[in-house]
């Protein structure tokens, strides 16, 4: 089946005018399937993280939304353990006027503005409401652990002091929390 013009156009534009902090590259053997990266927004606990996602345009795209999933572990109330994303524009608020580009920007915005009132992971969402400081701390620990593989050793080392050392449940967690000044 020939690739629809709409998809070719979108792909060409993604290549020619990439969105800052976002990349989307189609697979050579399946032009409806994209490898995506999204950088965590600066003012979020995901700052310095670069997240891998995968995106697929189903047969009836753009009448139905793209399918998108995180492949990097992330601590976020609207993203579950399998990387599935709860976002209105990926579901009921999808419109064919939206594009791959706008969807990826919406996901990046979701990283900057978690929405615990419409959660996908109820445990993470509860933490976000009950103890937001601790939730943000946990999110940073995950960013450090899973989201920074793209950096070299030296670059990572320079950023070490920006990140708390321990996750909840780790030994000495409470002591670390005090020395971070997060209590």
């Amino acid at each position, binding site marked *: 089946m020939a690739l629809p013009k709409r998809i070719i156009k979108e792909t060409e534009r993604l290549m020619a005018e990439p969105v800052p902090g976002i990349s989307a590259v189609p697979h050579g053997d399946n032009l409806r*399937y994209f490898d995506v990266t999204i950088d965590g927004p600066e003012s979020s606990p995901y700052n310095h993280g670069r997240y891998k996602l995968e995106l*697929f345009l189903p*047969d009836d795209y753009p009448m139905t939304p793209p399918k998108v*999933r995180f492949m990097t572990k992330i601590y976020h109330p609207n993203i579950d353990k*399998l990387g599935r994303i709860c976002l209105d524009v990926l579901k009921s608020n999808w419109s064919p006027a939206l594009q791959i580009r706008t969807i990826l920007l919406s996901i990046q915005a979701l990283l900057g503005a978690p929405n615990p009132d419409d959660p996908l992971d109820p445990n993470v969402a509860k933490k976000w409401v009950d103890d937001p400081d601790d939730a943000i701390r946990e999110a940073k620990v995950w960013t450090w652990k899973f989201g920074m593989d793209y950096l070299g050793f030296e670059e990572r080392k320079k950023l070490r002091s920006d990140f708390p050392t321990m996750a909840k449940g780790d030994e000495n967690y409470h002591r670390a929390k005090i020395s971070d000044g997060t209590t």
Partner: protein
Amino acid sequence: MGAKVPRNFRLLEELEKGEKGLGAEACSYGLAEGDDLLMSNWNGTILGPPHSVHENRIYSLKMHCGEEYPDKPPAVQFISQVNLPCVNPRNGVVDPSKLPCLANWNRDMTMETILIELRRYMAHPSHKKLPQPAETLEY
């Protein structure tokens, strides 16, 4: 021919179908570990078909979807002991050459296809009276 659904989105579809219980009533399946981003290891159960020695038994099995799934079928292995010609009696591994859906696999088939076919295989006239190991035994 339509768009080729990549492995991970295909597995997410199967997971949702399995979770919602939209599939066949006598079979169920789900991820072995709920946080496995690679979604490789799955558990399945088959309720033994009626009017056979398998009636009222519940068989558990595991399925492993490799990187080439669904272009290649998953590896299937019984956890519960069972006596069937397509199942290795020592370790419960299903011999793909002896189960038609695995032998003639195509990417439109799913893990549910396999479970349903195994259940039909149990009910086959030449298999439905085979003596079976005690119900609680596992490999």
